[in-house]
């Protein structure tokens, strides 16, 4: 009997929970462009910059946050591999306030480390833009970022070699000049 009362009490305690009740509202009306950015011929150790524009079409100011997202193979463009490290991408700012019915730009910087293994690759990653909201259902837009790194060419090596040879020749020339015209002590 005591067990039954305990169970009934527990049931009563667990019976109700409330979800918040709000008035019906529309999602934040905004747009992002461009929808796709393609960076090609990016050498390892180099960085590229571009801008995303957020257009707030609402009659109120909204805050937007920027993030990255790794799409699955099925979601990526053909022949595009998984982006190795989302930390290579930075946003400035990462959170932006866009006044009513106006546009704002966010600068995106992509920097690929100087390592041979990242040369001659094709990657895709998505850049997400979402309004800050507490609504049950929200929207987020993604911009496709396609990156192709250039093959590791001879250019870098040749330049260094050439500069080294030039410096060596100049130093040798002055060395020879110095020693042949050194004033002998009387």
């Amino acid at each position, binding site marked *: 009997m005591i067990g039954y009362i305990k169970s009934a009490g527990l049931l009563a305690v667990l019976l109700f929970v409330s979800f918040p009740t709000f008035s019906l509202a*529309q999602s934040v009306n905004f*747009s992002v462009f*461009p929808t*796709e950015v*393609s960076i090609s011929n990016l*050498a390892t150790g180099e960085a590229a910059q571009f801008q995303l524009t957020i257009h707030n079409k609402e009659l109120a100011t909204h805050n937007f946050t920027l993030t990255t997202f790794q799409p699955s193979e099925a979601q990526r463009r053909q022949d595009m591999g998984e982006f190795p490290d989302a930390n290579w991408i930075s946003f400035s700012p990462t959170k932006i306030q866009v006044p009513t019915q106006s546009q704002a730009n966010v600068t995106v910087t992509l920097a690929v480390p100087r390592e041979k293994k990242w040369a001659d690759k094709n990657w895709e990653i998505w850049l997400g833009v979402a309004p800050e909201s507490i609504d049950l*259902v929200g929207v987020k837009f993604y911009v496709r970022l396609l990156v192709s790194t250039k093959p590791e060419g001879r250019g870098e090596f040749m330049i260094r070699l050439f500069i080294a040879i*030039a410096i060596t020749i100049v130093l040798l020339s002055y060395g020879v000049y110095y020693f042949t*015209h050194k004033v002998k002590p009387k």
Partner: protein
Amino acid sequence: MTAKRSLPKLEGMRVVITSLIAVIIIALVSFLPAFAQERGTITITMTGVSEISITLDKTEWALGNVTPNTEYKTSPPVEWCTLTVQGNCKVNTYIEGEDATWIANPSEYRWTLSNDGSNGEHIYGLWFRISRDAMRGPRGDGYVPINKTQSEFWPYAGGSPLAPNATKKFGLALLTPTRFYSGRQMQTRIIISAVAA
């Protein structure tokens, strides 16, 4: 006598050094453009005047008090909300959910969102159903589970992406946990995302 002898030698060295420097400069001038070209200009291509945008005509669901192990559906069930493609590019859309948290203290108590729409103790299920799509989903009734990883909203199974001005009506269903702590106002969030097709 010594000075007279070293004078031609000095002149010779000057000629040699000047020639060497001239050769280096000429070589640099002729090679550097080629090197610069090989280093390459980074090409950044942005897709024309395309802009991406979708809107939802409802974002809130007034559920009120709920009881354990009960399924709640939006009203109307499958045409509760309309998604409209506002931008000028075709889009693929995705959906994802998250755990429901206690509004008063989100880190203290939560309902975990299940992967398959099922429920359990402090585990709840979320589903969506798109209008005129009655055969989709594991139960074959059009309802598809929403989980914490992004999954296809529309298109799916190789269908066509949504064109500009296209609309999709959909509804939601929520299956409450078999057991939960009462008197706590819970909050969750569903994200519908879009990317250029």
